[in-house]
C-alpha cells in the first residue's frame, strides 16, 4: 500500500505547495556559454578574504585561478571562461552585497587549464578547497563543512535532493541526467567523512528517478530514501527528522546529532571537482517566472549579470521582482547589476509583485497548523514589541527554521515570519548584551 500511496509526511504541519514544475522538470539542462563580459566575484562570502592574482590586461584560460584564499576556510576563485581581464572592481551579489570582482571579456575560445587526475582520500578535502566547492546550506565552503563534520564525529551523511519549493528543478535534473556520477561523488564524500550511513533523500513522487537511483546504488554503500515532500521537507532539520526520526535540539544543527546534511548542489560541484578536475566556474540554476519566455534549467557561468540572462532568455514583460532562490525563502532584489554566484539554484523573474496589505489577525489558526516545528507563530509575532519574553517563547523563537510558511498561508497577509525573525534578532542581541 505504501508503495502506491507513498510515504506519509514525517512531521506535523508543512504544506504540499503547488510546485509549478510540470514543464520545467521535463526540460533538459542547457549550457549558456558566456557571450558578454563576466563579472566574477573573487570570494564567496564577504568575511572570507582572498587575494586577486591577475591584473587588468592579463589573458586567462578557463579554470585558471583569479584569486587565492588568504585564510584556511576561504576558497579560490576561478575564471569561468577564457578571455581578457578588463577591469577589477566590485560587484553586487544577492546574498552578500558587494564583493570584490574581476571583469573578464570572453574571447570565445574554450581553452582551459590542463587537467590533473588523481587524488587520494587524504587530499580530497584539499581538492575540494582548491576547486572552490561551496555549500549552500550552511553557507560555507564544502571543505570547511566536511572538516567540522569529521571533527564532530558524524556517523550519517544525508544528501538533500528534496527541492520542495515551487519552480526549482536543478537537483531533479541533476539526478535525471547524471545519476551514476552523483552516486560516485556521494560514495567518495562518504568515504572521506568515514560515515557508516550515506543516504540520498529524494521526493517519492519522482518514481522513475527513484527506481533509476535504486538500480544505481546496488552494491554501493548509499541508500535511497524516498520521502513525501511537503514543504519544508528540504530543510536539514526536517530532513533529519524524516530520515532518521531524530529531532535536532532547538537552535542546533544536524551536526549536534552526528548527522551532516549536504545539498545536492554541492555534491554536483564536488563531482565535477573530484571526477573531472573541473573547478567551480558555473552554477546550475532554474530560471523561471511569468516574465521570462524560455524557462528551464541552465548551466550558467559565474559572474553572468542577471540582465544578460534576461536578455538571452527573452523577457516577456518588464520585471517587477527578481528572486534569487525559491519563492518562499529566496532573496528578492531590485538591483540591476547583480550577477550569478556559484551557490544559486534558482532565479525567478516575476512580472508582478504581490500586493500585500496586512490586516489584523483573524485567528484562523492556519499558521499554527502548518508550522513545521510546532510553534505558535501568531503569538510569537507579538514578541517583536515585548521586552521580556517568557522562557517558552524564547525557546520557540530559537526553534523557528525561517521557512516562511506562516507568512505564506496567512489570510490576513501579516508578515509573520519576518516579525518572528526580527523578534529573534532583538531578543538575541539583548541576551547577548546581558551575558
Amino acid at each position, binding site marked *: 500500500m505504501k508503495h502506491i500511496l507513498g510515504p506519509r509526511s514525517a512531521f*506535523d*504541519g508543512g*504544506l504540499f505547495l503547488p510546485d509549478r514544475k510540470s514543464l520545467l522538470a521535463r526540460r533538459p539542462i542547457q549550457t549558456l556559454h558566456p557571450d558578454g563580459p563576466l563579472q566574477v566575484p573573487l570570494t564567496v562570502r564577504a568575511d572570507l578574504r582572498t587575494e586577486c592574482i591577475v591584473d587588468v590586461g592579463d589573458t586567462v584560460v578557463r579554470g585558471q585561478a583569479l584569486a587565492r584564499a588568504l585564510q584556511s576556510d576561504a576558497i579560490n576563485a576561478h575564471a569561468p571562461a577564457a578571455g581578457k581581464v578588463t577591469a577589477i572592481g566590485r560587484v553586487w551579489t544577492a546574498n552578500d552585497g558587494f564583493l570584490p570582482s574581476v571583469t573578464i571579456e570572453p574571447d570565445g575560445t574554450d581553452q582551459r587549464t590542463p587537467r590533473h587526475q588523481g587524488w587520494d582520500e587524504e587530499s580530497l578535502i584539499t581538492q575540494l578547497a582548491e576547486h572552490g566547492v561551496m555549500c549552500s546550506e550552511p553557507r560555507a565552503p564544502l571543505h570547511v563543512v566536511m572538516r567540522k563534520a569529521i571533527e564532530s564525529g558524524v556517523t550519517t551523511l544525508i544528501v538533500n535532493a528534496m527541492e520542495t519549493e*515551487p519552480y526549482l528543478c536543478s537537483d531533479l535534473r541533476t539526478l535525471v541526467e547524471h545519476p551514476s556520477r552523483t552516486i560516485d561523488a556521494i560514495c567518495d564524500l562518504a568515504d572521506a567523512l568515514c560515515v557508516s550511513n550515506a543516504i540520498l533523500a529524494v521526493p517519492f513522487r519522482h518514481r522513475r528517478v527513484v527506481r533509476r537511483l535504486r538500480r544505481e546504488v546496488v552494491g554501493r554503500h548509499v541508500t535511497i530514501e524516498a520521502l513525501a515532500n511537503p514543504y519544508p521537507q528540504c530543510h536539514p*532539520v526536517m530532513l533529519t*527528522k524524516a530520515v532518521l526520526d531524530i*529531532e*535536532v*535540539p*532547538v537552535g542546533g544543527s544536524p551536526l549536534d546529532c552526528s548527522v551532516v546534511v549536504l545539498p545536492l548542489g554541492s555534491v554536483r560541484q564536488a563531482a565535477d571537482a573530484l571526477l573531472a578536475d573541473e573547478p567551480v566556474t558555473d552554477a546550475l540554476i532554474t530560471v523561471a517566472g511569468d516574465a521570462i519566455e524560455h524557462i528551464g534549467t541552465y548551466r550558467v557561468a559565474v559572474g553572468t549579470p542577471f*540582465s544578460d540572462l*534576461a*536578455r538571452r532568455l527573452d*523577457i*516577456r514583460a*518588464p*520585471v*517587477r*521582482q*527578481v*528572486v534569487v532562490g525559491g*519563492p*518562499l*525563502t*529566496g*532573496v*528578492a*532584489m*531590485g*538591483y*540591476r547589476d547583480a550577477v550569478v554566484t556559484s551557490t544559486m539554484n534558482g532565479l525567478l523573474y*516575476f512580472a508582478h*509583485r*504581490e500586493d*500585500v496589505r496586512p*490586516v*489584523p489577525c*483573524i*485567528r*484562523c*489558526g492556519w499558521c*499554527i*497548523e502548518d508550522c*513545521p*516545528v*510546532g*510553534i505558535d507563530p501568531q503569538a510569537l509575532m507579538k514578541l517583536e514589541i515585548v521586552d521580556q519574553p517568557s522562557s517558552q517563547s524564547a*525557546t520557540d523563537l530559537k*526553534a523557528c527554521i525561517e521557512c*516562511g*510558511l506562516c*507568512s*505564506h*498561508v*496567512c*489570510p490576513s*497577509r501579516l*508578515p509573520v*515570519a*519576518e516579525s518572528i525573525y526580527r523578534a529573534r534578532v532583538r531578543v538575541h542581541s539583548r541576551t547577548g548584551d546581558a551575558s
Partner: protein
Amino acid sequence: MPIKSWLAVDAPLRSDAPHRRAGGTHRHILRTWMLAGALVGVSGAAFHGWRALLILALTVVSTFAVDLSFVLATRRASSGRLSRTFLVGLIAGLTLPVDVELYVPVVCGALSAFVGNIIFGGWLHPALVGRVLVQFIFLNHASLAVMGGAVLLPAYIFTGDATASVSTRYYDGWLDFEGEGAQAIELQSPQRALRAFAEGKIPPDGDDYFEPLLRDVLPPWPDAVLGAVPGGIGETSLTMILIVGFFLIYRGYLKWQLPASIFLAAFVTVAILPVGLADGYRWFPVFAVENGRAVGLAYCVYHLAAGQLGLVAFLIAGDMHSSPMRVQGQILFGIGIGSITIFMRLYGVVECEAYWAVLIMNTAATSIDRLTRRRTLGTQPPREQAALA
C-alpha cells in the same frame, strides 16, 4: 524587449520572503461566510415569507450603523472589520424568529455591535451576545421564546402571507397538506416539544411515552430536516445549513471536526442523559423501544435536527475570532457545545440553549488553546523531561 528596460523602475530594491502567498485571504473567507449566511437567510425567507429578509436587513443595518459610528468617532482603522460587522449582523438576524416586532432586530443588531464587538472585542461571539441580551430585555416577548409559528405552504413559499394561516390537528407532512385556502400552517416548534417532553409535560399513551411525542407533537422527520418548522430564520432549514456548511468545509474555512464533534457529543449526551417520565427518570433513552419501534433512537435524532444546533455547528461555532485555533482544540470546543446544549435543553430554563453553550465555550477558548498547544520540535516532551529530572 530592449535590454535597458528589463527591470521595471518601480521594482523594490529588496523585499522579504516569502515572495508568493497562498490564495485565500481574509476577504475570501469573510465573503464566503457571508454568502453562506445569506443562503441560509434565503431558505428562512422561503418558509417564513419575505418578512424574514426585512428582519435580516434591519439587523445588518443596525449592527453596521453602530459599528461604523464607533469607527468614525474613534478614528480607528476599520480594515477588514466592517465586513466582519456585516457577518455579525447577518448571523444575529438569522437567530431571530420571523414574527418579532421590528424594533427587536434593531436592538439585537445594535447590542451585537456595541456589547459584542466593541465592549467584548469579539472574543465572545458578538451576534450571540446580542441575541441573548435581547432575550433578557424582552423577556415577556412571546415570540422570542418560540412556542410555535406559521410556516408557508409549498404553493406559497417566499410569497405567502404568514398571517393567513390555519392550525390543524390532522397533519402528516408539509408537502401533502391541503391548505383549503390558507397560505400557511400553524405548527409547534420541535425544540419546544422536546423541552416539554423532558419536563414530563406530554401525557403518556398507556405505557407508551415516546410514541405520543413522535406521533402527535413533533413534525414529521422530513419536515424537520427540510426546514418547514417554526423557529429562528436561519435555524430551521437543516438541509440548507448542511449545504452551505459542506461548502465552507470544502473551501477549508471551517474544519469538519467541529460540526462533527458537536453533533456527536450532542447525540451521546442525549442518548445517555435521563428524561423525566411519569414513572421516574429513564436513563439511556436511546435504547427505548415501544411497539417494536426504536423510538429512542428517533427521539435522539430529533434532538439533533431541532432548534439551533445545526446553525450553531456550521455557521456560528466556527467563527474564527472566538473559537480555538487548532483542530484538537476545536474538537474539545465542539464536545463542550454539543453536551452543554443538550444538558440545558433537558434540564435548563433559559431559551436559546445552543447559543448559551457557544458563549460558555467561548470563554474557555483561550484555555483550550493553551491545553492543545503543539510540542516544539527539538524540545523534550514534558513527561520525558520529568523522567530525566
